[in-house]
């Protein structure tokens, strides 16, 4: 069975979704990720969905769930690289993912995670100062 790799980068975990998500894969990712967070004591999770082109309400809910679960395990979640079509679909489905932080790309997402780890109040914006 295919599996989504979870890479460790220092205090953060990097998840790159490069295949079409189906429900079982999403459940497996949720399972793996929570296990890895508690194993590695990660402080942040970065989910890159730039290659994800099709999304349904289940995947949307799963993203929200992963963010909520990570927060309970004391890790921030940032979803990066969402495609315009995916964003429109999620909005039309009525899912605004209120608990999920977002960034344009992996770079911006990493910056956001580092800032929040340093205890700065970064309300979803990254300052370049």
């Amino acid at each position: 069975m295919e599996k989504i790799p979870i890479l460790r980068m220092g205090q953060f975990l990097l998840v790159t979704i490069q295949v079409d998500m189906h429900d079982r894969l999403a459940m497996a990712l949720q399972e793996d990720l929570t296990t890895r967070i508690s194993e590695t004591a990660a402080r942040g999770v970065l989910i890159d969905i730039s290659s994800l082109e099709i999304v349904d309400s289940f995947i949307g809910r799963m993203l929200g769930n992963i963010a909520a679960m990570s927060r309970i395990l004391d890790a921030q979640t940032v979803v990066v690289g969402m495609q315009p079509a995916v964003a429109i679909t999620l909005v039309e489905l009525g899912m605004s993912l209120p608990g999920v932080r977002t960034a344009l790309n992996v770079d911006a997402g990493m910056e956001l995670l580092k800032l929040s780890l340093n205890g700065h109040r970064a309300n979803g914006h990254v300052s370049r100062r």
Partner: protein
Amino acid sequence: MSKGVQNPKTGVLATVLSKDESSVLAEWIKEMAGATRRTDLMNDSELRTQCSKFLKLLREGAESGSSDVQTASWQPVRELLTEISRSRAQRGFTPTETATFVLSVKKPLFELLRDHVGSDANSVAAELWSTTELIDSLGLFTVEMHLKTREEVIRRQQEEMLELSTPVVKLWNGILALPIIGTLDSARTQVVMETLLENIVKTNSRVAIIDITGVPTVDTVVAQHLLKTVTAARLMGADCIISGVRPQIAQTIVHLGINLLDVTTKATLADAFALALDRAGLSLEHALKTA
């Protein structure tokens, strides 16, 4: 209603036309000299060409024996009428004026038919009826084509307006502005949202300013569309600022009970731009000093 059967009646029409085409033409043009002529929109020689072409094709259609204008033998006549109504619709002829072009041929035709058939009332009536049926269906076809042309023009203009109305402007590195002019409906929101999101990806912008100075009224539907766009941009990792909120619009929004608390709003585009610069870590004073 394809009759398909040979109609002997159109045979008489064909004979009349082949014999007296020129006199029908002269009578017809005289007939059209009345109110529906519109010399301001079309000159005499062009009208004469159109008329003689039509009579020639009408004769050929009548010679084929079929009286159903939807059949293949009437194809050339239909094509000519399509062309005529199209050009007239574009020049600004009314549907009545366009239809009268075809319908006014009745009088000269009927006179000729009466002369040709003779005094037998029954056959004259039968002949007139079949001809009137034929000309009427051609007239209806002309009106239909006229309307279709107009609808095409309207549709094209709508598309052009849709394209014109969604320019995404880059104000600074990482700062986009989207001035919206006119009322937001679902179709426009879709286009606005798509262009904005695509440009956010293309220019890697973290802040997008939606300026609604040109939106005349904001009701619940428009507000909902705006919120959707803001949410979609947030999902992609960009911040949206709504600017150009006029006092009346602020009042309306509150009276309607729309919750814009999660969205940053500014009164003017300048304020929004200053905030965007601040978020990007740039300051305006610095820019002014170096300038």
